[in-house]
């Protein structure tokens, strides 16, 4: 069942400005976790605030369980929507204890029943003994979890999370986001979170909506977005991606070629090519004449692998760089000449221009 439906939403902050959100549509099914991902200025926060009811759309509509809650003519006020929001900087009430922060949204319950809601929630986020503390007595990760518990307490129909992990340091971030997903799934919550971090989106979302300049670039499951990007922007946004000019590819007879973009014509050659991720390429010893070769320009140690940058040039193309994720056993050094081949098995490529 579709819980939240966003239809052709457009929002402009000032007349004459570029719209912050332009003709955006997507659906959020019940119980799913959707991520809105994009760079700063992509319109993702505006979209979140539109759904929360803190902003009014210029056109389009937002439907919650079949009822229109936002349209240019009528906006249900945020406090009447039944939508929860976890703020980027948590926005815990500094003058209230953890317990009172969580109880704030439980006014509809009789006083006696509130504790019965708060205790299991604190248990769920693993902070059962923290009810009497004040926000400033909590660590960053604890505050994040309390903010989550507070937003979940009134049982919102949709939970929104605004850059929920951005204020956490890298080590904490991974564990908190896995916990968050576990908590949301445990509660069966329908949730939407915005992030600029593709790692957040890929690792915990059920579906991803990629935004750029207020326009949806692609919507799909994480592997889909990563391995079959809809365009060059999405391809490079989710990690390093090599653009190989078409005429630099090995001979088109081999099964290694996944995408062949027409016969290369010299005047167009520079504009056609394939996108290949570094982990889908490998360095090989080869002296076949039609193999792509390059000189190693840079080797960066990344722990589990080496990030190798090669400078390549093929007849009819300008020099270009190719990045390859190289795993041991053999060591490589700048200045050496290596051939580049697609790694066997899965590989995703796409025509780009």
């Amino acid at each position, binding site marked *: 069942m579709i819980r939240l439906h966003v239809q052709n939403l457009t929002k402009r902050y000032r007349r004459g400005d570029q719209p912050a959100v332009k003709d955006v549509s997507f659906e959020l099914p019940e119980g799913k976790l959707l991520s809105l991902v994009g760079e700063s200025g992509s319109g993702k*926060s505006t979209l979140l*605030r539109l759904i*929360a009811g*803190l*902003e009014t759309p210029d056109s389009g509509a937002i439907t919650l369980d079949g009822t229109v809650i936002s349209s240019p003519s009528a906006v249900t*006020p*945020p*406090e*009447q929507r039944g*939508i*929860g*929001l976890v*703020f*980027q*900087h*948590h*926005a*815990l*009430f*500094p*003058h209230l204890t953890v317990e009172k922060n969580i109880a*704030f*949204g439980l*006014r*509809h319950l009789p006083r006696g029943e509130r504790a019965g809601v708060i205790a299991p929630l604190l248990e769920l986020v693993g902070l059962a003994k923290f009810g009497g503390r*004040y*926000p*400033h007595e909590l660590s960053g990760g604890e505050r994040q979890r309390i903010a989550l518990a*507070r*937003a979940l307490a*009134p049982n919102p129909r949709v939970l929104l999370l605004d850059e929920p992990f951005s204020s956490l340091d890298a080590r904490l971030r991974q564990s908190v986001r896995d916990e968050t997903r576990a908590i949301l799934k445990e509660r069966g919550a329908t949730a939407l979170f915005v992030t600029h971090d593709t790692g957040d989106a890929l690792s915990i979302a059920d579906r991803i909506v990629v935004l750029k300049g207020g326009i949806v670039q692609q919507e799909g499951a994480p592997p889909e977005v990563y391995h079959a990007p809809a365009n060059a922007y999405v391809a490079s946004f989710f990690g390093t991606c090599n653009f190989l000019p078409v005429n630099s590819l090995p001979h088109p007879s081999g099964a290694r070629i996944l995408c062949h973009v027409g016969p290369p014509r010299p005047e167009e050659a520079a504009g056609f090519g394939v996108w290949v991720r570094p982990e889908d390429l490998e360095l090989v010893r080869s002296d076949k004449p039609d193999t792509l070769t390059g000189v190693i320009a840079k080797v960066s140690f990344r722990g589990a692998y080496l990030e190798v940058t090669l400078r390549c040039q093929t007849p009819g193309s300008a020099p270009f760089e190719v990045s390859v994720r190289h795993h041991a056993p053999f060591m490589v050094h700048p200045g050496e000449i290596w051939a580049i081949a697609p790694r066997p098995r899965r590989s995703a490529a796409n025509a780009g221009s």
Partner: protein
Amino acid sequence: MPRPFNSRRLALPLIWLPALLVLLPVGVVAWRALQPAGEIWSQVVETRLAGYLGHSAILIVAVTSLAVLLGVPAAWQVSAHDFPGRRIFEWALLLPLAMPGFVAAVAYVDVLEGLIPFYVWVRKNHGIDAFLLVQEIAPWVFATGVLASTLFPYVFLSCRAVFAREAAGSLEAARMLGAGPFRTFISIAVPMARPAIAAGASLVAMETMNDYGVVSTFGLNPMTPGIFRIWSEGHPGSAMRLAMMLMAMTLLFVGLERWQRGRRKFAPDPAERPLVRRKCGPAGIVLAWFVCLLPLLPGFLIPGWRMARWAWQSFDRIDWSGNLTAAGHSVLLAAGAAGLVTLGALVMVSGRRAFDGRSLLLAQRIGLLGYAFPSALVAVGIGTIVSSLATTPGLAGLALSASSFGLMFAYFVRFLAVVIQPAAAGLETVSASLHQAARTLGAKPLRALVEIDLPLIRAALVCGATLVFIDVFKELTLTLVLRPFDFETLATRTYRLTGESRIPEASVPGLFMVLVSLMGLIPLTRLLSFKK
């Protein structure tokens, strides 16, 4: 190696000089107050002290609470709600800052006098006790109303910053958790604004304590006029003891404010953007207008309008030469004080940057303290210094110049903070590394100051100087006590004519002061929009 020239050793006394000047009058008063008390003092304690203290306490509590009740909801309305006229109210609610209490009082003196038929009616219908009570209470009501409605902008300003910015995240969170406007205001906005309310309220309390014009216009007898009365009766020692008590009250307010600020252990989560204002329905619009007009009408619109009408009606009878002479004096004093204070602040602030040192921070703190010294104490202290100078054999002829010097001195003490504050804050935003970069590039401290630091805080200095100009322009208490004989400024003229019940004539200098002060609000609002 011999060091022929040590600029630091030469500069330090110069940088400390303004701070010592600020301390001098307090020092004189404290020293005199510590002398053994005479018989006069025990008389004062017996007959007057309780009255003065009681009146001051009642007035301060009443004015401060009323100012909070007026200022906080008004700040909430213009920050959290969207209604027609909101943008106008946002700055219009600052207008009372340009209306000194004793000028606003001009417009109410006749109302108080017009109550006589009401007293008669009360006496006839409710007896003598009710009559006495009403007659006793009426001036209090007027004085409290006038002071609160002209001073509430201090509370309004400090709260507005919290509501619109600092607390925005929490306010939106409350909304997302289902709280309506009223609950958000009571359970989130007000508690979060408590330190800001305390800061605004302590300013209101200090201004109330220093007020001379309003209370004496309405015939009340709190500390400040009391000190001047005892002083003018020729009992400087007793006046100084009272002044020290007033000082203790001030320290109490400053302490309370600090305590309140200190209790907030943690800054609220920073908001990513200003608060999104809630659209008002018809009832909300009516409420918002009511809340905004409630302080604005008595604090600015009614007195402004009444005085403008009186001035217009008596236009051909205006004493132009008297008013212009007074205006000239006001401008002279205000400009002179602004220049002196700016110079003093400049020396202190830039000295601290050039010769980094803890003692200089202390000097700067002392400079800031001057603003908290009660006017009465400063006036009595400097009055003593001036009169002892004038009675020194051989200096007697200098009496007149001594007293105008005393007046400047008093302004310097009271208003030095007004320039130090923005200048120091300005220098804080100019990273010290700029100064250090200039030094490593071979510039001596003075050159680094003149070429790098000062140009970057010019705007702050201009703002501070303008504020001093305005403050002195409408200053009454110090001017009244310390001015040379027969020397009239617009403020003293307004006050004198009001006291003589020549209301239409008092309106002209009063209005002129309001207009000039309004011009001073422009840099003030610009400063505030910087902070946004």
